[in-house]
């Protein structure tokens, strides 16, 4: 039995050491994130978050509640931070190509840890025609497997009108044109054609 404990101890030590090493090899501070979150086919976990648009900040009584969007196709876009160039690229593309990528009847929401006032200014700088939700504790990001060390990771979910997840990209490439093509196709399929 003593050998058994030694073996398990060695394995535990390896787990502690190997995980940060693999992250450090990618440069920057050690981070360890295991991809999780609901997969396509699952019901989208409900949540409630405050929001801002380019024009205003939503009232407390008017939080975004996912289940209230039933009947619409919903796109959840988790991203690291407002006003950073990768996120600007992503949300600028969503804005510039809104009709082409999403179309009428689709509810697009961006989600990051930023404050509502920062969201309002960011949305205004882009002219974004969609809501940005504030998730400072990453509670919702964690539910959707998108939690990072200090900021959310860049992921995208498509939810069909029945509330079922039909697509997810857990490493959305903000600078990869094909990532947008795949999202467009997924939204079209979720809308039923």
């Amino acid at each position, binding site marked *: 039995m003593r*050998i058994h404990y030694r073996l398990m101890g060695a394995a535990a030590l390896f787990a502690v050491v190997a995980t940060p090493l693999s992250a450090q090899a990618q*440069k920057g501070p050690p981070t360890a994130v295991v991809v999780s979150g609901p997969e396509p086919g699952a019901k989208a976990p409900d949540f409630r978050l405050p929001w801002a648009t380019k024009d205003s900040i939503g009232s407390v009584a008017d939080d975004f509640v996912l289940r209230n969007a039933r009947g619409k196709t919903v796109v959840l876009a988790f991203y690291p931070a407002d006003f950073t160039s990768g996120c600007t690229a992503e949300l600028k593309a969503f804005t510039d190509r809104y009709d082409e990528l999403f179309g009428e009847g689709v509810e697009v929401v961006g989600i990051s840890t930023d404050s509502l006032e920062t969201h309002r200014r960011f949305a205004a700088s882009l002219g974004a025609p969609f809501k940005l939700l504030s998730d400072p504790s990453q509670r919702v990001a964690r539910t959707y497997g998108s939690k990072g060390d200090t900021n959310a990771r860049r992921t995208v979910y498509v939810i069909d009108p029945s509330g079922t997840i039909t697509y997810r990209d857990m490493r959305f490439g903000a600078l990869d044109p094909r990532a947008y093509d795949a999202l467009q196709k997924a939204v079209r399929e979720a809308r039923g054609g």
Partner: protein
Amino acid sequence: MTTVHPVARRASYTRVLVHVLVACALLAASAGRAAAQDEGIAVGSAAPAVTVPALDGTPVDLARYIGKKPVLIEFWATWCTSCQAMMPRLTAMHERFGGEVEFIGINVTISETREGVAAYVKEHAPPFLTLYDEAGEGARAYNPPATSFIVIADRSGRIVYTGAGGTQNLEPALLAVTGRASPTNGKE
């Protein structure tokens, strides 16, 4: 109560250890992939020699440069303020190192048009060979976390520097890949 022969027990422990170590290795590899998402291609890895079209659509195979001479690649966009902030620095670095280092600017094509980029290049004359990554070959190979992401590879094609933002100090890496002594020791 059953007794287990010591040899059989040892074999059982070894199997447990192997399973646990494999699980840990998979977890570590998964963590590395996830962490890489917003950090871009790793320093120390080989610069991918992908083919990306020039502004006129002509395919440009980066193998023409990578592994043959030092290379600097910036992933940029006309609307990127950090890229605009880096432009004077890139111009200054190109004046000093352009004879030995190939400067390449891969336009990310997000919220861009070929005509718009061509007009921008004509007006601002950025100090690099401009490529237009409309199929995303460059983006998928280098995983740039942001526009203004710069990669510098040495003569062997090994990446020695990556960074992003409008205040990057490229001089130490360029001195290193050109084999020159550093007069500033990397400090601005």
